């Protein structure tokens, strides 16, 4: 019975906490612009959700401390109301509804992941609330004709098609044989579409096309097939678990492929978990700190990374950088609109054309950012594998190292 009492008091304490935090906000209170965001602080996306939140917070602090947002001759400061969406799309949609209709939020920041953004977008669209999101790359978000959705990142189908072009280039311009394995979720399937298009464009052939389950932790079968048919490129996309599993099993099974291209290598901290085994993997990334984009708030990528590390004690993954960029976009749009009218802000957002430390930002009709190419980096390690680094190898304009191709075979490594 004692336990019941403890549980009961815990629940009532929680209820009390929640009820006090639900005070009524409006879009702009005094000198504050209130933004709302449902974010995954618990559940399966919680680590990336926290990166997103840290990115948002970092930008809010920076913009506020550097003069805030000037609208109609008055200076405003950003503030964000967060709710935990538990990594659950239904919950995220409910929270968006609540942010808008109960808390009176009129400007939204996106959640983490394509799935959750998909759940929220219809709600913000219904209320005509502009949403700048930084973590939903699925192409399907940008083909629905949403008018109030803006994404600072490049769509998912552009993640890895660069790798196919690169492989073709290395093959003397001749088509290549592609083996691919993708998780069955919106994001990875979009990455797959990008590969299909790239294959068609270059005349390349897809010889293995596996789909990976959500509970993926063993892809030995796919890799054994890869070993048997010897493709020129192996493409894997299955979030962090896909990247980690692939690297582990490729090393264990001594699978030799000339090129290995993946997504989610940054967040996977591949090289930290696998050391030298992860060497030579190509990773698609929205951003890398060595890129030379600039803005007046964060300076450049290296400065952003240093400041982020100082505040949050870890190297910023691109999820954090793009989230920070979302705030810069909002600030810019408010100042150009010179108004808090949702429609005017929306139009100002649509006309965005700016450079941030994260990259150039210019929105297409569908809301995706078309002015920022994806970068590919290759994991490169020192001789004993104690220190591995991500070096940008493509596109050539941003490259800080030369691509190592083909990957040396396991017998030579």
């Amino acid at each position, binding site marked *: 019975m004692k336990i019941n009492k403890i549980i009961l008091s815990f629940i009532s304490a929680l209820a009390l906490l929640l009820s006090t935090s639900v005070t009524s906000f409006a879009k702009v209170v005094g000198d504050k612009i209130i933004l709302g965001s449902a974010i995954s602080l*618990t559940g399966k996306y919680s680590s990336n959700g926290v990166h997103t939140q840290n990115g948002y917070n970092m930008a809010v602090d920076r913009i506020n401390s550097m003069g805030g947002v000037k609208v109609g001759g008055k200076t405003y400061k950003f503030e964000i109301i967060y709710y935990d969406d538990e990594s659950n799309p239904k919950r995220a949609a409910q929270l968006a509804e609540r942010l808008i209709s109960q808390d009176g939020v009129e400007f939204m920041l996106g959640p983490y992941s394509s799935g959750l953004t998909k759940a929220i977008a219809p709600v913000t669209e219904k209320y005509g609330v502009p949403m700048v999101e930084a973590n939903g790359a699925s192409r399907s978000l940008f083909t629905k004709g949403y008018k109030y959705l803006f994404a600072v990142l490049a769509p998912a189908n552009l993640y890895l098609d660069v790798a196919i072009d690169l492989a073709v280039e290395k093959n003397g311009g001749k088509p290549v044989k592609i083996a691919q394995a993708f998780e069955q979720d919106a994001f990875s399937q979009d990455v797959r579409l990008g590969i299909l298009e790239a294959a068609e464009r270059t005349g390349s052939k897809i010889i293995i096309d596996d789909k990976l*389950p959500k509970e993926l*932790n063993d892809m030995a*079968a796919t890799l054994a097939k890869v070993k*048997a*048919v010897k493709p020129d490129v192996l493409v894997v996309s299955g979030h962090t*678990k896909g990247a*980690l599993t692939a690297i582990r099993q490729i090393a264990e099974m001594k699978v030799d492929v000339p090129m290995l291209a993946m997504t989610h290598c940054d967040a996977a901290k591949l090289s930290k978990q696998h050391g030298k085994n992860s060497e030579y993997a190509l990773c698609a990334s929205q951003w890398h700190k060595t890129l030379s984009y600039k803005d007046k708030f964060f300076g450049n990528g290296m400065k952003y990374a240093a400041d982020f590390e100082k505040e949050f004690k870890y190297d910023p993954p691109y999820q954090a950088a793009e989230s920070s960029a979302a705030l810069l976009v909002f600030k810019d749009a408010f100042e150009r609109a010179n108004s808090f009218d949702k429609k005017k802000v929306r139009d100002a957002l649509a006309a965005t054309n700016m450079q941030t430390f994260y990259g150039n930002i210019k929105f297409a009709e569908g809301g995706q950012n078309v002015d920022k190419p994806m970068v590919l980096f290759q994991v490169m390690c020192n001789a004993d594998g104690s220190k591995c680094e991500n070096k940008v190898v493509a596109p050539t304009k941003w490259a800080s190292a030369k691509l190592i191709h083909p990957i040396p075979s396991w017998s030579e490594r």
Partner: protein
Amino acid sequence: MDFLIFQVPMLTLQATLDGVLLGILFALIAYGMALQWGVMNIINIAQGDLVILGGYIAYFMYLWGIHPAWGVIVSPFIMYFVGVGIYKLVINKVVDRDLFISILATFGISILFMQLMNFAFGADVVLANSGYGTTMLFDNSVTLPNSKIFSAFISIIFAIGLVIYMKKSKLGRAIRATAQNARAAKILGVDTEKVYAATFGINAALCGVAGALISITFTIHPYMGLPYTIRSFMIVIVAGLGNLPGVAMSGMGLGVFEEFADYILGTEFRIGSVFLLLVLILVYRRFKLSRKREYLK
């Protein structure tokens, strides 16, 4: 459909060996489930979550610079007490109740564990590196990660150890007596409450061993427990409760089935085919799932 596997004989061998090694590991988890199912008539939905928790113990040892293989010693110790703790808090209240109640209770424990692990360890996918290397056969055309071989070997040792323990030790005899007839055992002076707690603890300890092995062979993640529950449930259903060689055989069978399904139908149907098989077996057995407590050999 993809029949590459039959065109390349080495792939068939690869799949079979992978399946057998995997199956032995499944069988260990299933053995724990069979044990407490047989003794306490409880289907433990949280089985897979106990496995994952055991995996995290090995993972943390790895982070602290201890070789994760020691996890197979440390993890069961800790997990034993976790198991006894769960028994004292929850399971003892449902042990004599309807099977349905126990499923609900353990389902609740499962959700709680998932969320707690997510809260405590984060949602990142993690793994522990054993650095064991690879055994290559037939000129590198069949590869067996040594970590998988190690896992199978350790699983067999623990399973044999447990069988001997159940046969020879006082507690083992008490557990078997309770499984046969709890009331009679009680009358004859067996403290069934203690026996139940120990049984649940032993089951959790086995999960701990399996978890440690999984952390060095595959990956672990707070939400990855359910497939392990389903697999062990299936193995137990196929083998029956009191049938250890049956558990081992059906474990290996399931492992091989999964690998072949993976090759032929595609990886996306791997877990799906396990579920399908479960349904087929349940239908085949016409739901004649014995609800009486069976004697555990």
